């Protein structure tokens, strides 16, 4: 084993770090990491700006083949990239475009689809959202009922999607729809690419607990989608879905974000005196921060291991490794949020915008937003099922 980075990797890391340190000075005031920040009115232009800058530097899709804008970079570079991006809380990487549909098309798309969609992603021109969940198909995604009916060279799509992050800004969506209603569950589902500007697509906001606009409902009312936008064979979409889910599960970006937040929290505790005592002198505060430092390092090791598996076994992760990374990352972020809130005492509850809000009130918001992350992209319960089934070989109950 060798945990060292090569000199080239170290250099890349340093270059990216310097670049982001500079660029992040352009962030809107009170900038936070995460999709909630990206999908706000102030955050979205910055997200696009950063995406363009990263694309110009050639960093956006490095692991992709050269013909589609990448440099065939090894997975480990992707990990380094994500870790540094996370640490700087930098936006710019469209996880739906670069993280999910891009690799999916590389694996399952036809040549025409790759040519049409991959370059605009690499050039940071086309942003994506994911239309999978429905009101009655959450954890049990395969029970979805959105219909796609063949009509000449097109499909006509009708139905409702929900929890669609960033649909209010996205250019395109990749969605699942049932093409054969006779078939049950995972059979009879097809995978489509839909232009969000298509007539019949309506986006309605679903506001989060603290009023954040991240999620949307997306209604499809006789939306006409050309048949060439179907990925894979008709009724065979589910297998593609399984692959898409497992590309984007390394928790390294979360680990990077959490590490940065812990540093800031620790600095805050060193500087802040309440009732004559520095917070960092409080043994509970010290222990809680130390516990998080341990968990972050454990998370980092898990993320690198995950990347290593991808490096050796291909982009497509095994379901249990992907699930482990996801559940660890989001629950770590939740623990950080709760710990920060606790440490702030009475001040933890103060919202951004008040002069009394410590660290921009970020813990008031993250203590609420963290709940959504435990659910988005598959709930922690579903992830644990995956670990039990695929990792431990336990029998399936559902």
């Amino acid at each position: 084993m060798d945990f060292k980075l090569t000199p080239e990797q170290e250099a890349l890391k340093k270059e990216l770090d310097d670049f982001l340190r500079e660029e992040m000075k352009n962030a809107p005031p009170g900038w936070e990491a995460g999709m909630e920040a990206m999908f706000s009115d102030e955050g979205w232009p910055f997200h696009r700006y950063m995406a363009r800058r990263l694309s110009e530097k050639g960093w956006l899709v490095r692991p992709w083949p050269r013909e589609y804008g990448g440099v065939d970079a090894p997975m480990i570079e992707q990990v380094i990239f994500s870790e540094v991006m996370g640490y700087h809380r930098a936006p710019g990487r469209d996880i739906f475009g670069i993280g999910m549909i891009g690799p999916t098309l590389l694996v399952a798309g036809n040549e025409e689809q790759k040519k049409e969609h991959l370059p605009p992603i690499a050039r940071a021109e086309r942003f994506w959202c994911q239309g999978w969940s429905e009101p009655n198909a959450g954890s049990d995604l395969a029970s979805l009922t959105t219909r796609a009916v063949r009509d000449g060279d097109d499909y006509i799509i009708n139905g409702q999607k929900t929890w669609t992050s960033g649909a209010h800004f996205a250019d395109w969506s990749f969605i699942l729809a049932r093409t054969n209603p006779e078939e049950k569950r995972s059979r009879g589902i097809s995978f489509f690419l839909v232009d969000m500007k298509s007539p019949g697509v309506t986006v309605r906001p679903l506001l989060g607990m603290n009023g954040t606009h991240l999620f949307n409902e997306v209604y499809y009312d006789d939306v006409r989608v050309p048949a060439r936008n179907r990925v894979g064979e008709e009724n065979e979409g589910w297998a593609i879905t399984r692959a898409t889910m497992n590309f984007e599960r390394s928790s390294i970006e979360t680990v990077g974000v959490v590490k940065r937040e812990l540093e800031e929290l620790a600095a805050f505790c060193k500087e802040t005196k309440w009732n004559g005592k520095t917070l960092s002198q409080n043994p509970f505060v010290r222990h809680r921060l130390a516990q998080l430092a341990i968990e972050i390092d454990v998370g980092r090791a898990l993320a690198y291991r995950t990347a290593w598996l991808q490096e050796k076994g291909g982009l497509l992760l095994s379901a249990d490794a992907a699930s482990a990374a996801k559940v660890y990352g989001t629950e770590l972020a939740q623990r950080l949020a709760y710990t920060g809130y606790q440490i702030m005492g009475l001040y933890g509850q103060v919202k951004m915008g008040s002069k009394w809000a410590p660290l921009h009130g970020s813990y008031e918001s993250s203590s609420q937003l963290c709940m959504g992350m435990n659910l988005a992209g598959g709930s922690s319960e579903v992830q644990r099922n995956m670990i039990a089934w695929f990792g431990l070989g336990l029998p399936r109950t559902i």
Partner: protein
Amino acid sequence: MDFRFAEEEERFREEVRAFLKKEVTEEFLMGLEDRGELDFSREFTKKLAEKGWLAMAWPKEYGGGGATMMEQLIFNEEIGYFQAPTGAHRQGINLIGPTIIAHGTEEQKRRHLRGITAGEVVWCQGFSEPNAGSDLASLQCRAVEEGDDYLITGQKVWTTNAHRADWCHLLARTDPEAPKHRGISYFLVDMKSPGITVRPLINMVAAHDFNEVFLDNVRVPKENMVGDKNQGWYVSQVTLAGERSQIGLPSSCKRTLEGLVEYVKETKRNGEPLAHNPIVRRKLAEMAVEIEVNRMIAYRVAWMQHKGLIPMVAAPASKLFGSELLQRLTGIGMEIMGLYGQLELGSKWAPLRGAMARMHMYSLGIAIAMGTNEIMRNILAIRGLGLPRA
């Protein structure tokens, strides 16, 4: 609401406490440990019988004291606090006695109840089998009719005190064709019967409490069946009759916590008493909170029983919480002791007689015995919250 005990109840508590203080001395407990009978003393059980406390809440007509549920609660709370041995009478008093009272024939009552109330006959429970644990109703031990007897063949496991018991109450299948709950009967079996073999199962602390019990064509007279044939599953459910607060768990924890508090006050690490360490303080305080919270739900159980209600949900909740509390408390005790926490009974370096590590290992068993905590949670979900069965 009024959380005060009545004056005569307080007087009774004082009387019990004075008795236990005299009887359950450090020396007495050490003696039990030396004999490897930590929770088992026929002599002590007899003394309780002499005081009239053993079956205090049983009806008077069956040799009980007719005490109220609240008095029984007080008694159990004190017994728990003094960590007194109850192994020689627990099964008889809490389980088999109430079952015989509810379902037994006059002859069974005459024959068995006195031995229990006098503290003379020790019982064990033959329910679990290697393939029938949480799913007890799938048990396979067979009882086949032959003339005036049943011949019982099969294996029981986790039978606490089988090697010390005089009698066993056990479940065996009398109709293998019937649905699993409806083909079981309830028997009283003399442990001296030919065909019974008891083999020790040594637990994690190297103590011998558990056994395997093998039954090979054990002849049991028909008159030893309790309740009707194939009704054994329902007969066994009566065991709900005894005091079910599980108050013994939090009150025993309270005593243990007090020992820990003394320990951290007296013990210095690097010149500083452990009691000054904020983390130690917080952990012990957390345990005090949990003990108190546990005590209150146990009181609630007793109160419900006192009023004639059956605590279908609160009782398993109390057991669930108490057993997990014991795990947390002893775990925290070991952590606080640091390297010393791992020392066992017998080492001169072992704090608090090495009881913490031992109790911690025991606590794992308590979370399993009498229905695992997973089963307890199922009961809460299904009976308490009305959720559908999985």
